[in-house]
């Protein structure tokens, strides 16, 4: 984003002319707790991905084989630069595979 040194540099009426510009903003500092996904417990239901209000759940086509020998084609992880730590994913997870870990002990 262009550096705004004077009020004259500001875009008219607060418009943002660059789509997706919030991707450049790191909001990790907003977080008190970070979600952590237990890949062993995760059943790949995608509910966390659907509910995350900041699209901070990453879905990848990456194989994962559990200790019991079950192989999933998808792996879910957290985009920690954009996760604000709201905990909705942990609350919605039907198998309690997401834990909220305090950022500061």
């Amino acid at each position: 984003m262009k550096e705004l040194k004077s009020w004259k540099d500001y875009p008219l009426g607060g418009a943002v002319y660059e789509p997706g510009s919030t991707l450049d903003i790191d909001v990790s500092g907003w977080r008190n707790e970070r979600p952590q996904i237990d890949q062993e417990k995760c059943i790949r239901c995608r509910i966390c991905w659907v509910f995350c209000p900041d699209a901070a759940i990453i879905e990848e086509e990456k194989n994962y084989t559990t200790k019991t020998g079950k192989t999933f084609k998808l792996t879910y992880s957290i985009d920690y630069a954009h996760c604000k730590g709201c905990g909705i994913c942990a609350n919605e997870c039907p198998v309690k595979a997401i834990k909220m870990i305090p950022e500061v002990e």
Partner: protein
Amino acid sequence: MVLGLETKKSELKPLSTNKAVAEAAKDSNVDVVAAYPITPQTTVVERLAELIGEGELDAEIIHVESEHSALSAVIGASAMGARTFTATSSQGLALMHEILHIASGLRLPIVMSVAARALSAPISIFNDHSDIMNQRDTGWIIIFTSSAQEAYDTIIQAYKIAENSNVLLPVMVAYDGYVMSHTIEPVEVLGKKVAEEYIPKKVSWNRLDPDRPITIGTITSPDYYYEFKYAQAKALESSLQHILEADSEFKKKYGRGYGAVEGYMMEDAEIAVLGTSSYFSNLKYAVDELRKKGVKAGAIKLRVYRPFPREQLYELIKGLRALGVIDRSISYGMTPSGPIALDLMSTYRYKNIPPIQSFVAGIGQRRMLIEDFVRIYEILERRASSNSINEETLFYGVKGIDI
């Protein structure tokens, strides 16, 4: 005035100010109209619906459930690049309050007509300026008009002003409910040529376009918000020159111009009274009466209210012995109680100005005849002669009060 324009093939129609305003929106070739019925504005939008029905205007009317939604709908349409119009009065304008700030904050060139009416409670459907004055600080350009013709011309000028890329602010065109909204006057209408030659359509503002996506109405942090509001303040302040340019160009093309303020018999006036909207016409009659008696009286019309035409008005008042200011709304708990009188007293605080006597009159359309205006001049003259003008407002016409 009208005769000289015959060569321009314009038409003279008998119109109430409401109908004149609808005609002006039609001649401005608006794309989207959204409004909610409220007395005494209702016939503006009724007439626009008829004009669309008759095929005179190709526009969308959005039916909404309130004025809050009406202005919101118009904001959405304006953000899509449409030329938009809405109209309201009184409680309707009050209900729009939070959205008024959003329209100006987003810098959208919306034009709205307001048939000024008193506010509840108790309920009054009649005229005063409480509704407008309550919206004074919403960042809109506010223009008071004094005749159906002026209202027609000003709506058209309002698009020129609002869509000017140096301005990009919404404009409120006000006139007196009933006294003007429902009074039929001869109005010279210009027809659709106006939209082509005076206000050709060109989207000069932020437009939501799927091919070139932008975001509007975002949240800002304390690091950024202030500058947007400063830019808005500067835009409104500097819009005065563009308002006057639009007026001059209109006058050049169509023969009528109004300026930011207007004086009547001010060249040698010793005392004068300032009024807005229809009161100016009556003040002129009162001046004629007083001149017959040898009183050097003058009348002043404040047309552009925001931005406040500080220098233009100062030129009119600076040589006076005394100035009366008539407000048709009350700033409760403040001395003086008239918002316009208050504006004058503060903006000219460090200039040489005559004593200003604040009057409140016509609240809830309390009848004001020409003789009442003559009486106001007489009170002003008496107070000026006895050096008894002070900050306190005189509430003219209240039963049980003798001034």
